[in-house]
């Protein structure tokens, strides 16, 4: 295929957090995106969550800005209610046939006002709230939904015709039918997410029979302030607040009997989070979690577990699976039966939450058939270790839970990763399919007297039904500098937008006010309109008279009208002081610097270079490969040596990669778009626009368990080599693996994530080579998450003996009784309740992964934060896992936290995609709302420089503070803090704020 045939558009199937992130990365890199979802709105599973671990962030708070961004992005077309029917074509040029199911509401006309839903006489089960409450037959799932377009549930709609009569926009289309769409795209990304396991078939837990046994996702909705119980936990049986709640883990996971042997990866943390939040919401509530293992393997997850126990007093039992639940028929309380040590125990709870597993989406088989992609035995996409984002079909990629259960940050990293892979397929066609908007020149209003136009919205009857809109219009006309005011049925409709443009011209308006709904969703739209009318988009202000008046003072029309007038008055007071804001722009140096030449660094470099950008790859050692050079195999049987070698060859031969081996960064200067880096010993500086940190990790050198004192005690990496190079007859006949050496302790509370999997792999390899060998694994929690659980089971079946030990009951290793005899290991066995002794030929220590020395220095050079465990700290643990707060710097791999090769590679590809969102532009535009420092007033105390969370303020040569426009996000912390009061925020100046406030105060001065 020639470059000409490549299509500069991408299809993303599945609009959850994964699909949204992929879409944004691609749309920001110059590609058209079709984001397809089979539901009426995007948002996926994350939209149902109340909070997210391990920060307990409010899920909707962090997700809503992304929803809005996707919804309004000019390069993203959202196609909802659509199923994929078939696919033709080849890599870089596919034609996808979609079947768009009828919404029965015209998406163009529906304004999302919701009158239809209020008037609909039919109730249906609200599945967004997991059936715990009712909604109308015409509905949106949640108020922040994108697109905010209502949808008729045909199953429940009785066809009474009321909504058609009520809809002021005339948007109801009862006779809308299925529509077939053909879309021509380059690559395709599949991110349909997961479905939760339905625990009904597990009769022993009584789900569906006992009302007080609920699933974890139902419990999530119960916890949500916007859920059925408004965040107060209540029992479904009687609405009482429970005192004791139990969480049962691994329901539908790690269960061979139901064919789901894999671990769902997220439920341990999810349950801890739910228990914490439940206790926060409900004083007096106590919770208890029944784990098999606590799989807190992610970044700072173990700290979270500690917090749950110490701060919240959450009870924890590590047992085999809870055997069963019996219900007390009178109280509807629940009795759990479980093992602890050798005993069988019973305990009563008021409410039981089943932590249900993540299953492949129900649509997996249809997608597999339509796209020809292979699934594994659990119906997830079968990706490979060294191609973690690729399906078997070239040009089709998979991201998120579709390729295995995983948490949000891993998903978001993959979502960016597939964006890099997809972009590489069609990078020649970048910027070919973008909508080209022609704007009139911006009128210079400087020095003009403000001439304000006020547009007051009826919002159907949403505002007009309560607030006296004509009265507000009349009042607005009396305010200073207002030369025009008018009412509209829907100010956001296409025809009103046109009218605003006409009025600007007719009345020579230079400031626009819309009194309608919330600026959080509608300001971008109106700013566009203002810009299209030839005015600077910042000459605009909103008064939120719907969300703050008509909807919340429905029974006080007079007071609501008075308040609306005052909100308009405040908007006018501010509008009079508005000034046009220019967005500073800076040119971008379209080259990348990648620091670290391990698997992550090489992957990132290749993914950027494959998109046509020059990449400088700097590696401290003389060879590429990093710590992976010491690995020989993976749990899935890959030949790591060969794969890494091949990767290194690709790097060396790549025309766009310039390699610096044995090199180190001496200093880095500059900011996003334009960095200048000097390598030690070099005289020529490197100029680049972005930096990727992939500095890797190192293995801990133990001082425990006779390591260094007896050569039969080795680390995992040492044993890796021994296993690969030693003949079977020379391998140890009794091997003891000891887990968590040098981590999960006071000094290093974190989990190194990969050691459990590596141990199981090595145990299996040893057993494979020497079936007679006795192999013991001494562990604290065996963390073989996701499909690695299969290997754990295989090892157990192969005769590897797993013995758990508690934190303060570490095994004891000694030289043994005779001089050349075996080493002696003593461990307390919990089931037997006694110490047992093992004679070992070899002891293999799962030594922690440590951040490399040098992270500190790099962190200082680039002003990047390190976590308390000294790994690099990303901008946001959940939704910006690869970014730093400082723009233009990204991270991947072990530099972020310990992880497997495939996870490192996915992150590295993701970091590449994030980097390309900058490299693919000629210039970067700053925000309009940014901080500005009055140099005459500044005395150079440096307070603002220290406070700025984005390192967006620098010291000038004459010792003054100066804002770096492109880095500033306009939060205003500096302005409120400046000891000299020399800082202000454009668009939110102190003068504007005070004018707004005082316009409705004593005297109402304006």
């Amino acid at each position, binding site marked *: 295929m020639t470059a000409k045939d490549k299509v500069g558009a991408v299809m993303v199937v599945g609009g959850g957090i994964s699909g949204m992130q992929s879409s944004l990365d691609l749309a920001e890199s110059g590609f058209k995106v079709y984001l397809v979802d089979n539901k009426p709105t995007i948002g996926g599973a994350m939209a149902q969550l*109340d909070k997210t671990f391990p920060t*307990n*962030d*409010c*899920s*909707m*708070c*962090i997700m*809503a*800005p992304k929803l809005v961004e996707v919804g309004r992005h000019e390069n993203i077309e959202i196609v909802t209610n659509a199923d994929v029917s078939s696919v033709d074509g080849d890599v870089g040029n596919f034609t996808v046939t979609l079947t768009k199911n009828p919404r029965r509401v015209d998406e163009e006309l529906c304004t999302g006002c919701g009158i239809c839903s209020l008037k609909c006489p039919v109730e249906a089960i609200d599945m967004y709230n997991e059936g715990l409450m009712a909604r109308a037959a015409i509905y949106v799932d949640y*108020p922040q939904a994108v697109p905010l377009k209502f949808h008729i549930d045909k199953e429940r709609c009785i066809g009474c015709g009321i909504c058609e009569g009520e809809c002021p926009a005339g948007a109801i289309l009862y006779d809308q039918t299925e529509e077939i769409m053909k879309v021509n795209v380059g690559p395709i990304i599949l991110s349909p997410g997961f479905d939760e396991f339905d625990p009904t078939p597990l009769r022993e837990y009584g789900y569906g029979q006992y009302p007080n046994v609920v699933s974890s996702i139902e419990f999530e909705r119960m916890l*949500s*302030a*916007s859920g059925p119980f408004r*965040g107060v936990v209540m029992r479904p049986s009687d609405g009482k607040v429970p005192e004791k709640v139990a969480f049962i883990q691994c329901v539908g996971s790690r269960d061979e009997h139901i064919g789901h042997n894999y671990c769902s990866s997220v439920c341990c943390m999810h349950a801890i989070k739910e228990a914490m939040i439940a206790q926060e919401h409900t004083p007096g509530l106590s919770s208890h979690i029944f784990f098999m293992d606590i799989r807190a393997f992610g970044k700072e997850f173990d700290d979270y577990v500690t917090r749950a126990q110490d701060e919240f007093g959450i009870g924890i039992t590590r047992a085999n699976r809870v055997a069963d639940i019996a219900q007390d028929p009178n109280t509807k309380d629940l009795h759990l039966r479980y093992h602890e040590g050798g005993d069988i125990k019973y305990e009563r709870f008021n409410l039981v939450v089943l932590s249900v597993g993540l299953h492949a989406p129900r649509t997996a088989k249809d997608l597999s058939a339509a796209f020809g992609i292979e699934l594994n035995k659990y119906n997830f996409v079968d990706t490979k270790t060294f191609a973690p984002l690729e399906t078997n079909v070239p040009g089709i990629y998979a991201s998120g839970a579709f390729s295995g259960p995983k948490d949000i940050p891993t998903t978001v990293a993959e979502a960016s990763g597939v964006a890099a892979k997809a972009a590489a397929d069609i990078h020649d066609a970048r910027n070919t399919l973008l909508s080209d908007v022609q704007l009139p020149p911006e009128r210079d209003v400087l020095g003009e007297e403000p001439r304000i136009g006020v547009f007051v919205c009826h919002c159907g009857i949403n505002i007009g039904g309560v607030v006296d809109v004509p009265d507000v219009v009349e009042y607005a006309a009396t305010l200073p500098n207002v030369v025009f005011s008018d009412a509209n049925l829907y100010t956001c409709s296409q025809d009103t937008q046109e009218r605003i443009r006409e009025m600007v011209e007719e009345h020579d308006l230079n400031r626009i006010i819309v009194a309608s709904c*919330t*600026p*959080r969703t509608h300001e971008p739209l109106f700013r566009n309109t203002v810009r299209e009318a030839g005015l600077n988009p910042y000459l605009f202000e909103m008064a*939120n008279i*719907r*969300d*703050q*008046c008509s*909807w*919340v*003072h*429905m029974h*006080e029309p007079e007071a*609501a009208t*008075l308040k609306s007038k*005052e*909100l308009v008055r*405040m908007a006018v007071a501010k509008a009079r002081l508005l000034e046009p804001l220019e967005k500073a722009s800076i040119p971008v140096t379209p080259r990348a610097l990648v620091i670290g030449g391990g698997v992550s660094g090489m992957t990132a470099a290749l993914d950027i270079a494959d998109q046509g950008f020059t990449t400088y790859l700097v590696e401290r050692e003389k060879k590429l490969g990093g710590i992976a050079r010491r690995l020989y195999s993976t749990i899935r049987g890959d030949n790591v040596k060969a794969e890494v070698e091949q990767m290194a060859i690709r790097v060396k031969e790549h025309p766009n990669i310039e390699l610096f081996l044995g090199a180190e960064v001496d200093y880095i200067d500059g900011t996003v778009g334009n960095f200048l880096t000097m390598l030690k010993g070099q005289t020529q500086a490197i100029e680049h626009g972005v930096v990727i940190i992939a500095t890797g990790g190192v293995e801990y050198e133990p001082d425990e368990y006779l390591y260094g004192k007896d050569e039969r005690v080795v680390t995992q990496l040492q044993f890796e080599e021994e296993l690969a190079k030693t003949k079977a007859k020379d391998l140890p006949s009794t091997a003891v693996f000891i887990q968590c050496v040098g981590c999960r302790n006071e000094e290093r509370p974190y989990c190194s994530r990969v050691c459990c999997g590596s141990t199981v792999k090595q145990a299996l390899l040893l057993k494979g080579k020497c079936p007679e060998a006795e192999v013991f694994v001494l562990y604290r929690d065996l963390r073989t998450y996701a499909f690695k659980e299969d290997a754990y089971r295989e090892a157990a079946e192969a005769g590897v003996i797993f013995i758990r030990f508690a934190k303060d009951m570490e095994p004891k290793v000694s030289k043994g009784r005779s001089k050349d005899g075996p080493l002696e290991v003593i461990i307390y066995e919990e089931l037997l309740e006694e110490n047992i002794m093992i004679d070992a030929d070899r002891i293999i220590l799962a030594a922690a992964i440590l951040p490399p020395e040098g992270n500190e220095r790099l962190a200082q050079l680039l002003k990047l934060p390190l976590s308390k465990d000294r790994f690099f700290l990303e901008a946001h643990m959940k939704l910006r896992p690869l970014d730093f707060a400082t723009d233009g710097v990204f991270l991947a791999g072990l530099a972020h936290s310990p992880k497997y090769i495939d996870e490192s590679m996915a992150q590295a590809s993701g970091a590449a995609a994030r980097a390309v969102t900058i490299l693919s532009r000629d210039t970067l535009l700053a925000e309009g*709302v940014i901080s500005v420092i009055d140099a005459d007033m500044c005395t150079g*105390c440096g*307070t603002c420089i*220290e*406070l700025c*969370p984005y390192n967006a303020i620098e010291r000038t040569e004459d010792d003054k503070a100066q804002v770096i426009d492109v880095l500033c*996000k306009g*939060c*205003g*912390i500096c302005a*409120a*803090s*400046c*000891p*000299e*009061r020399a800082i202000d*925020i454009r668009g*939110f100046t*102190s003068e504007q*704020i*005070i004018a*707004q*406030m*005082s316009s409705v*105060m*004593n*005297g109402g001065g304006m």
Partner: protein
Amino acid sequence: MTKDKFEPRIIGYLCNWCSYAGADLAGVSRFQYPTNIRVIRMMCSGRLDPVVILETFIRGADGVMVGGCHIGDCHYMDGNHHAQRKIWLTHAIMKRAGFDPARLRLEWISASEGDRFAEVVSDLTDQLTKMGPSPLKGEKPDPEVLERIRAAQRVVEDFRIRALISKEYKLTTEGNVYGEVLEEDYIKDTILEAMDAEYTRNQILMETTDKAMSVKEIASAIDVPSPAVLNHVVRLRQKNLLTLASIDETTPKYKAMGGGM
């Protein structure tokens, strides 16, 4: 609404990402609350300057509500930590100036807490109704209270106080230039001490703007012991803010030199 009933006027300064969104959700969910609040949106609660808060009271607000993201949720990472400290300072100075700090409330409200937004506004409205009108409300604000709040406003405009309060978060979390992490109580005491001194000095300056006064006269006017007043007078003279106007027999009289601090 009857004419005689006192309706408190509340200004709500809400951050864009959480509290303003919570107010929106209250709207979407039709949670009803009293009509007394007038909301001003800002990007972050960390944007709010104590000077502006006090200005709001000077203009006659009965109450001020500041809404931000829950700790840990800030869209700008730690803006709400800074807001928390600014409000702490404002509360302290309001107390010092004899203006009920309960009129200023800081609340964390997330984007999913529409009901909480409605509850908080209802509760604050109730509370302020019970407290009655602000002494600064209306056409004839209490001149004495006004004077004191203006002195308080000058304090939060002062370099020293602003520098201290702005640095507090870093000093107690990441540490100072010596790498020492300071105790929160220690630095807070330092700030309170500074605040108290600056407040008294501002009062002295305001008292002596129009007429020269002796230490004793100042002490009785601002209700501060004479020895303390003398200390402040010395410091103010050092800073060239106060001048010795005359010595009546043995009593020196001082006068402000004009301009603020």
